[in-house]
């Protein structure tokens, strides 16, 4: 059951704030055409230098998403040399994406060569050992897609790495890593869950999906 609208309907919300929230979301996700249409329609203030950076980010994001990690790394280093140097986890994830791509292309010898030269050095740190073993185990299967580690070959995994890379670049450009939209939804969800608990309702916990349907 929804909260009583009287508790919030008198709160004034500035249109500009909403525009900025939507705009930051579109910029964050590199929806360039949508950004331009949105600015044209609303007359919102155009952020400085956003287009050039967004273009680069979009290309990087898509390369990572397609599994072309080496190109993503190359472009990232052009955009900001020290991002990957200072973020070993991200560097490992991107290199492992390329390894997975080689495995999927059945280039096992090449994959092994790449793993030994590029991923091997990470093996000296225990926190990467387990991940490394997961990736290396893919080589044991003639059909890695049917292996217990199949999730490493999935679009979801590439999406996860691409998101991490995008956030790292945004942080480097002194932009928020998370959009205001995401944060607001997260906060609203937590608040609604707390209110439900306080009210002592026996029903199911608050679900954003269900709320958006209503």
């Amino acid at each position, binding site marked *: 059951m929804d909260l009583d609208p009287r508790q919030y309907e008198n709160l004034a919300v500035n249109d500009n704030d909403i525009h900025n929230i939507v705009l930051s979301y579109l910029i964050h996700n590199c929806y360039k055409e949508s950004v331009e249409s949105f600015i044209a329609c609303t007359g919102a203030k155009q952020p400085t230098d956003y287009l050039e950076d967004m273009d680069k980010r979009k290309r990087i994001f898509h390369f990572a998403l397609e599994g072309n990690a080496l190109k993503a790394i190359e472009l990232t280093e052009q955009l900001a040399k020290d991002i990957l140097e200072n973020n070993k986890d991200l560097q490992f994830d991107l290199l492992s994406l390329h390894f997975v791509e080689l495995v999927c292309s059945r280039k096992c010898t090449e994959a092994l060569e790449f793993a030994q030269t590029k991923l*091997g050095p990470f*093996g000296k740190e225990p926190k990467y050992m387990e991940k490394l*073993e997961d990736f290396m*185990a893919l*080589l044991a*299967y*003639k059909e890695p897609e049917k*292996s*217990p580690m199949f999730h490493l070959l999935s679009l979801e995994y590439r999406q996860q790495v691409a998101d991490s890379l995008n956030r790292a670049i945004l942080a480097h450009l002194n932009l928020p890593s998370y959009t205001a939209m995401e944060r607001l939804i997260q906060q609203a969800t937590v608040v609604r869950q707390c209110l439900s608990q306080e009210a002592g309702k026996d029903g199911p916990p608050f679900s954003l999906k269900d709320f958006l349907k209503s």
Partner: protein
Amino acid sequence: MELSAIKDAFDRVTKKQKLSCSKTQEAIDLIRQEIESVLDTLQSVNNTDHELDYKTVLNELKASLLKIAPLSQMEGTQKELNLALTKYGKLHEKHFNPDISKAYRNVDIDIHTLNQIIANHFYRQGLFEIGDHFMSVVGELESAAIMKSPFLEMYQILEAMQNLNLEPALNWAATNGDKLAQSGSDIVLKLNSMQFVKILQNGSREEALHYARTHLSPFATSHMTDIQKLMGCLLWTGKLDRSPYHALLSASNWDKLAEELKRQFCNLLGQSYNSPLSVTVAAGVQVLPPLLKFMNVMAGKKHEWQSMNQLPVLVELDREFQFHSIFVCPVSKEQATEDNPPMLMSCGHVLCKQSILKMSKNSTKMFKCPYCPFDIDAAQCKQLYF
């Protein structure tokens, strides 16, 4: 067996012996010094023109030797040594009874079976020449070949493994793969893993990868963790000793694998890992002391012990020697036998057959289970096999 008392007694003997030895040496040294001193005196007089009364010199020597009193010095320590030795001997006799005849039964032994057990022991220990010689002496050489051949194969495999050659073992595992899998053994994986590590250590990365995809991939789902570790090794080809997986190179892994192979080999032959002879001897060594002790107490009742159905005293055996479950009926407090087996009642509780017959008046009436409110029909009871 408590051996510390014997060790202490032995230590006392050695201590006394050392003391006696040093005292004797001391006395001999003193005597030698006195004699050498007199000799020097005599020599120096010979070199000059002085007259010397030899008798006086010798008397002085005699007096000096009496003063040293070597015999009385050595006598005391020798007495102590003899005493310690006597005590040690008695303690030895007390702990190690040389006559074990009191603690065994006169059982009719089938000599042929006994010979087979002894020969089997020799063959499974790899002592083939001794086994053959023994079998020829007892005139059973024909059966020797049949008994020996599987163990010959086993020792050829083990010998190859000692030389770090896994080929014979892998061939054996491939031939018996299905049987090994049925018995729940993972030795095929262990052998292939060892071969994979060996290839890696030789620095052949592509060969190792090919080997893994051919021989390790069948285990990739059932033994995922092992496979992940092994595949991780590929990153350290040729330098595995400096890798996080260096433990895989330990020589003890080969010993463990050889033991495991021996165990599985015997298992496939339908034989126990340890030879019946070694198990019998090891168990016998454990039970003899309490039996001997008991028989010494019951010295006058030997006949009674010979005719008993079970051991007169409770003898504790280690878990490794407990091969069969024993059931004691909670009603009659008697151990189950072939004639009086354990029976499962419809309620799930177990009693011996005799107790059930007694309580059901020879299966003529229902009776209540002594442990729960169930009414039991004797005809519904099933014999249990442990």
